[in-house]
């Protein structure tokens, strides 16, 4: 097998992992599979695109590529604002939709269906605003650097990998070392008891939306940077993200990252061995295998 598979798989996998962390966190605390998570990805990517272009209009200097990368300072600046915007969008959807259903103690499946409706709405509105034509953060071409052993990667790809690793570590530390992280884990295990202990569950839910949305935004920007932006970019990632979140074990951040990498590598391997046209089947096969063999996932607790 071509060693390049490893690089391609790791880079795609890092992106999946990042998206899957958002899925797994919101899933473990809100307790339903949020089909609208993918639209947070798409929204984040387009928000960053719009803001970055706006910054470029204000000052052309911001568009000049930074060092070896394909984008200028406008993108990282826009990314920070886009993360905040995506978080606000998630809070807004929660306020008008999920929050109301939660107060009524709606069943899981009603929440899932609501997320499905929200996904349709958001995705179609994005398609309306940005059209289905692919868009790009930059037009700069990048030369892939040799990494040794016949492997190559562009500086953008390496940066994406580094950012993913950094964010995973940061989220892991947040969950394990801070008070809010402790509250999040407590709410995910037992919401009623968390309240008894003094945790403000509503605040935790807000934080989780913000965090999940910000991570989705970064994953979306990565996908946009490494491939392209399309209104369906998030939708197409939904199956790999769910597969990774379930494979990793719902609620487990290291699990989600590990599983994201597994899905990415399996896809890259499949492209090499079987053919690119079967790539999207990989996530489904992995999903079926996990549900069949180990429904609690690699690092999840049983009967979660």
């Amino acid at each position, binding site marked *: 097998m071509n060693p390049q598979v490893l690089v391609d798989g790791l880079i795609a996998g890092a992106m999946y992992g990042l998206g899957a962390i958002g899925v797994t966190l919101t899933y473990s605390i809100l307790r339903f599979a949020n089909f609208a998570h993918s639209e947070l990805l798409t929204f984040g990517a387009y928000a960053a695109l719009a803001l970055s272009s706006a910054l470029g209009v204000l000052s052309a200097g911001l568009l000049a590529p930074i060092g070896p990368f394909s984008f200028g300072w406008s993108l990282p600046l826009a990314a920070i604002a886009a993360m905040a915007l995506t978080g606000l969008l998630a809070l807004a959807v929660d306020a008008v939709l999920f929050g109301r259903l939660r107060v009524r103690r709606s069943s899981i499946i009603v929440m899932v269906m609501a997320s499905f409706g929200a996904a349709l709405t958001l995705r179609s509105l994005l398609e309306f605003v940005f059209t289905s034509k692919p868009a790009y953060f930059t037009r700069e071409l990048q030369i892939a650097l040799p990494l040794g052993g016949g492997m190559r990667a562009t500086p953008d790809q390496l940066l994406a990998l580094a950012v993913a690793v950094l964010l995973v570590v940061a989220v892991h530390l947040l969950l394990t070392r801070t*008070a809010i992280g*402790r*509250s999040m*884990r*407590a709410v995910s*295990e*037992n919401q*009623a*008891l968390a*309240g*008894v*202990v*003094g*945790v*403000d*569950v509503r605040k935790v839910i807000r934080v989780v939306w913000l965090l999940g949305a910000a991570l989705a935004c970064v994953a979306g920007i990565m996908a946009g940077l490494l491939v392209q932006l399309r209104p369906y970019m998030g939708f197409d990632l939904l199956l790999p993200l769910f597969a990774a979140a379930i494979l990793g074990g719902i609620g487990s951040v290291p699990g989600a990252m590990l599983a994201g990498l597994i899905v990415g590598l399996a896809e890259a391997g499949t492209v090499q061995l079987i053919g690119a046209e079967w790539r999207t089947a990989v996530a489904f096969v992995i999903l079926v295998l996990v549900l069949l063999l180990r429904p609690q996932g690699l690092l999840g*607790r049983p009967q979660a």
Partner: protein
Amino acid sequence: MSTVAPPPALATQALVAGYERDLPIVRGVDFQVAAGELVVILGPNGAGKSTLVKAIAGLVPIHSGHAFLAGADITRSPVQEKVRHGLAFVPQTENIFATLSIQENLQLAADILPRRVQAERIAEVCDLFPDLAARRSARAGNLSGGQRQMLAVARALIVKPSVLILDEPSAGLSPKIVGEVFARLKDINAAGITIVLVEQNVKAALAIAHRAVILVEGELRHEGPAATLAEDPIVAQLYLGAAPAGQEEGR
């Protein structure tokens, strides 16, 4: 009796509560606990004992009536506020975070305290429970039943509550361990913390309680000093003898 009575540590007034609006489980309970008292709530399975204490703690909707903590109305305060007002609650089941370590369980409770006193409070509580202190980094899910109850009590004590409510802390424990848990509760009470104890384990509970109330079908039917109730043959026959120990409530 003193001339000006202080407000009771905990009181309910015509409290009606239940899981669904048209289905009250607790039906008009008037209940008072004086500061420093150890009161036990007895009653047959399904009487609504858990529902009553969960309603006071804020986990079950209160339909009408009031709950007071040291004279302050806490009927409508959300569950996470009550612990800040000094009301600690140990539920009947699932009363610890099994996926968190012992230290994290305690720290979680301490998180609502000012930062500078957190470590100190945890250390103080650990002094009371040396078994737990020895295994602070272990996952709480790996503890034995008795250790879990100890952890749940320890966690509740972190905030120095004025009132501690425990729902069947002896459920599922061997008689020896029940003795240990109850001895600990007696010490805690002696240290000045008001305790409300829901129990099926009548003998052990009456042995440490000052007073007992009996709840039947959501209403208070009897109350009196623990010693008298323990000897009252009618009460014993009606509600106490038949109650098996260690019943777990359905979710």
